[in-house]
């Protein structure tokens, strides 16, 4: 990484988000702080409803109805996209600054648009490429995320692809403009285990190329394969944070312990990880 003028690619500080619940506005994310350096991959772990997806959507400025920003700020590459200076969300960082891989490619890809064009349109809009250039780049990207026969698949519709292929297309589309930050909202939940391994490998290489990764999941096993640092979120609050080893070996919070004990096969993995500081799983590339 050449010296960026910012230390953190993604900086979420003291973020508070409220949601409407039974007609009342209640806090859903409370003073959440996460900082991710370029090239670092950070896991955000919590159960459903803990506010982790809400946090990601705040970074993207994709609040659904009934969710409101209250305080704190979010900076992408040093630019405040949401905060006191940008209370309405500044979309200028989308695409090149920050992108997001969604949980369900089956609904996140436009069902009536050829998948290739869903990569191309981002390239044309952001990088101002010609049709032919964009197409070429899109095919390269598809190839890069492990889509075989990208020229043929370019003209396929999402429903004609398997779940794994769809997820690859979505990753290709989200990294098309080489974002500095990639948010991942449980992108492997809908996939079976072998495909999940392959997809995680792709994310690993994206992080290695200098992109900051914020990976949201409820699955500690995934985090142990992918991330260097993690935060545990419970009821909208970060209850634990630190490096993978620190959190896994010496958890301080009850909820974290509960989570760890509910993922028994991690124990073996952690021993392997402990013997290899870089993390055994990452080497499998």
């Amino acid at each position, binding site marked *: 990484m050449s010296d960026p003028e910012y230390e953190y690619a993604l900086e979420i500080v003291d973020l508070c988000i409220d949601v409407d619940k039974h007609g009342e506005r209640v806090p859903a994310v409370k003073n959440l702080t996460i900082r991710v350096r370029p090239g670092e991959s950070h896991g955000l772990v919590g*159960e459903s409803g803990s506010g982790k997806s809400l946090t990601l959507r705040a970074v993207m400025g994709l609040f659904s109805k009934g969710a409101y920003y209250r305080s704190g700020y979010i900076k992408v590459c040093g630019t405040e996209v949401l905060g006191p200076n940008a209370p309405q969300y500044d979309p200028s960082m989308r695409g090149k600054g920050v992108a997001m891989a969604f949980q369900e490619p089956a609904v996140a890809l436009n069902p009536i648009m050829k998948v290739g064009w869903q990569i191309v349109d981002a390239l044309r809009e952001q990088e101002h490429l010609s049709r032919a250039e964009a197409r070429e780049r899109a095919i390269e990207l598809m190839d890069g995320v492990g889509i075989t026969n990208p020229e043929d698949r370019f003209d396929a519709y999402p429903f004609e692809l398997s779940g794994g292929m769809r997820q690859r297309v979505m990753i290709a589309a989200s990294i098309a403009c080489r974002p500095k930050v990639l948010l991942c909202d449980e992108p492997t939940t809908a996939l079976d285990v072998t495909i999940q391994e392959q997809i995680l490998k792709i994310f690993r290489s994206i992080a290695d190329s200098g992109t900051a990764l914020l990976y949201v999941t409820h699955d500690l096993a995934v985090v142990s394969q992918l991330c260097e640092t993690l935060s545990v979120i*419970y009821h909208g609050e970060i209850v634990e944070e630190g490096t993978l080893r620190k959190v896994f070996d010496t958890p301080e919070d*009850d*909820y974290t*312990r*509960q989570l760890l004990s509910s993922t028994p096969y991690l124990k073996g993995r952690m021993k392997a990880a402990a013997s290899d500081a870089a993390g055994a799983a990452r080497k499998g590339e």
Partner: protein
Amino acid sequence: MPESKKIPVAQASKDYARIRLTGSKPRKRSHVNAEIVIGCVMLGVIALMIVFAPLLTSYDPTHQSLREAMLGSSPAHLLGTDQYGRDIWARLLYGGRIDLFVAIMAVFTPLVIGTILGAVAGYFDGVVPTVIMRLADLVSSFPFYVLVIVLVFVLGNGGTSIFIAISAVSWVPYTRISRGETLILRDREFIASCKASGFSDGWVLFRHVIPNIASQGIVYAMSDIVVNLGIIVTLSYFGLGIVPPTPDWGQMMNDGQQFLAAGVYSLTVIPTIVIILISLALSFIGDGLANVLKVRR
């Protein structure tokens, strides 16, 4: 571990307990919202005025008096008179009687028949459902207006003919809606468990299936009343509907149309406003019901 951080597992069993087994016991939630109230008040006022027409006017809506033709609004004639000297206010009130009555009856009948046919078509397999759905396809391959007009041609003019004609055509959407809902419901477990418990098909159909599928048809019926009112008035306007001297809004509009050129709008505009108000009221009720019953329109 602290009690507060336990993952709530009790929630699932609570939800399970709330699952409703039949449509007969309403859930505890509000059945009324502002839209329904507004719509019902509007419709109720109009309906009451029509029902109690004799209390609101002393004029005979068919009484002609050429000496009093084309009068403007006055204490004696609230809305004036038409070219035959008939009181417009009286004609408006009495005219609504047959129009609204036929419109509502011609929704109620297809709603009942169509819902039952659709439930039967969705619940059973075999020849009867096929015949029902083929017939529905056949009827829906004619434009609504054309078939109604042809039926009126066959049956002759008048309220009864219009009622039969509309009913004979407009059962189709109710049948489609109710069949679709029944097909979804049929695979649900409580229907299977009813069958397994040895209840007869008829009992399951009327006691469990139809109460559960009726709501969507009812919501659809609200806008259907407006459609019916439109076609009744239209037919009367063209002289194919309600037979004079029975007063109705379509004839009123036809009578008044020749005076549009002369700048006299009241004869035609007044019945139109009433019809639009009814349409508005029913649209409120329909949207409100759709919200309360959780039905997509």
